[in-house]
């Protein structure tokens, strides 16, 4: 296996499916864990906004039911991200990546603001469309090599198609990276920083993981 993220520190086996952690994926996993813990223990900020056309300003409040729902979605997003960081199976990785897309919409879905909801809707469409290349890439790799195990593919002996890797990366980019992140940036106007930040973090982390996968296999 090419030495991309450092030597394996820990391998967790579930039958023939395994999770493995290198210094690289451990770093990513720990960051997902830290920000999930912050989402659990932090209360949302009282976001101040400016009323245009005058010098007035007002504070946006996050109600308790809204906070509970968004915190739940942020935790789900954190768990999906952590799963994607250690996954040694391409299909599991794609599942976790699409779960990140769904939970990102969920994090802002409870915000009662037309602008934020429109942005979430647009992001949701892009993320949904992106699952096509995401799963398509994994399917193509399975069809040509007969396996979805990342360590097996990385060990050599398989001609992993470049198109499969490119589709996989494209799918993850569609979940919220440049240049498909325009709607997502607008979602960040929503109050509730500890939850909203998970949208940004999860997209970055799954992108960082797919780069490692694409180079490794």
């Amino acid at each position, binding site marked *: 296996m*090419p*030495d*991309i*993220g*450092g030597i394996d520190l820990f391998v967790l086996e579930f039958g023939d499916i395994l999770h493995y952690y290198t*210094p*690289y994926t451990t*770093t*990513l996993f720990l*960051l997902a864990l*830290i*920000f999930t813990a*912050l989402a659990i*223990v*932090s*209360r*949302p*900020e*009282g*976001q*101040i*906004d*400016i009323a245009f056309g005058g010098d007035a*300003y007002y*504070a946006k409040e996050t109600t308790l039911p809204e906070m509970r729902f968004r915190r739940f979605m942020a935790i789900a997003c954190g768990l999906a991200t952590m799963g994607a960081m250690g996954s040694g199976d391409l299909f599991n990785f794609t599942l976790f990546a699409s779960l990140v897309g769904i939970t990102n919409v969920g994090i802002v879905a409870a915000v009662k603001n037309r602008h934020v909801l429109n942005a979430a809707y647009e992001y949701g469409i892009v993320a949904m469309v992106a699952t096509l290349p995401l799963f398509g890439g994994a399917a193509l790799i399975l069809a040509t090599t007969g396996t979805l195990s990342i360590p097996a593919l990385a060990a050599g002996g398989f001609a992993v198609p470049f198109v499969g890797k490119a589709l996989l990366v494209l799918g993850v980019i569609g979940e919220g*990276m*440049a*240049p498909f*992140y*325009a709607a*997502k*940036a607008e979602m*960040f*106007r929503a*109050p509730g*920083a*500890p939850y*909203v*930040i998970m949208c*940004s*973090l999860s997209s*970055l*982390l799954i*992108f*960082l993981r797919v*780069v*490692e996968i694409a*180079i490794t296999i």
Partner: protein
Amino acid sequence: MIEYLVFAAAFGLLLLGLHRKVIARIQMRPGPPVWQEILHALKFSFKSTWVPKTASATLYIGVVLVGIGIWSAALFVVLAGESILILFAIYMLHKVVEHGFGLSSGSPYGKFGGVRSVISAASEIPLFVTISAIYLFTGSLLLRDIIAYQGVHGPLLLIVPPVAIAMYIVILSKMPYGPFSIVESKELVSGYKTEHFGVWRAGISVIDGLKTFVLLYAFVAIFIGAVPFWAALVIMTGILVTLSFVCAVTPMLSPFDSVTIQGLITGLMLAYVGYLWWVMP
């Protein structure tokens, strides 16, 4: 280990002070003394510290600690010669830290700084194109292997100069007062940093110092190779002065132009790496 951290933070702050001095001299101003950023960090350490009433207190404080933690980790990754993929992951995650700074306070200035930080994420993509090009040549992403490769074949700066330029632009995008510094531009007061005062602001200074040191040291290690430590410091200072020249003579771009130019650079780099991949045996 702590002495490395203290030295890196102090030298990084000194470089940022020099950055301000060079920009000022080019613009015919006297400018602050070069140790001004160190004085700022010390001053903020002893000023009254508070958390705004509107802030998400845990995140407001936690994100400062996360910022110091990730750049401390980045320093040890570079010094230990570990995978540059970890280093660049940390570079990208700094965006999330900026985002956290901006959003956690509840201030509209901080919030817009955070939102701009997200939309300028296009600046990170050339970084991965850089990594891909380096991997094509060296066959490894461990810094010690890259340095060993340069020991045999010569500096990567001469082998793949466009890749070195791409990383130079990536570092430029993180320099204060530069063309891409939209996250802390003056119409947003101090952008994402606006509401962090006292010891939290001193923490941000430490993050900035470590970040500057790590990025410049990594540039030297990746593109020039093994040099004595004192020589690395001299080269880092030289690179910083060139960055200061660019910042001094270039106006800050609007957010739209900033993202467009970074996108164009990404496109050019993708084409270059595609060409390398095509022609390499």
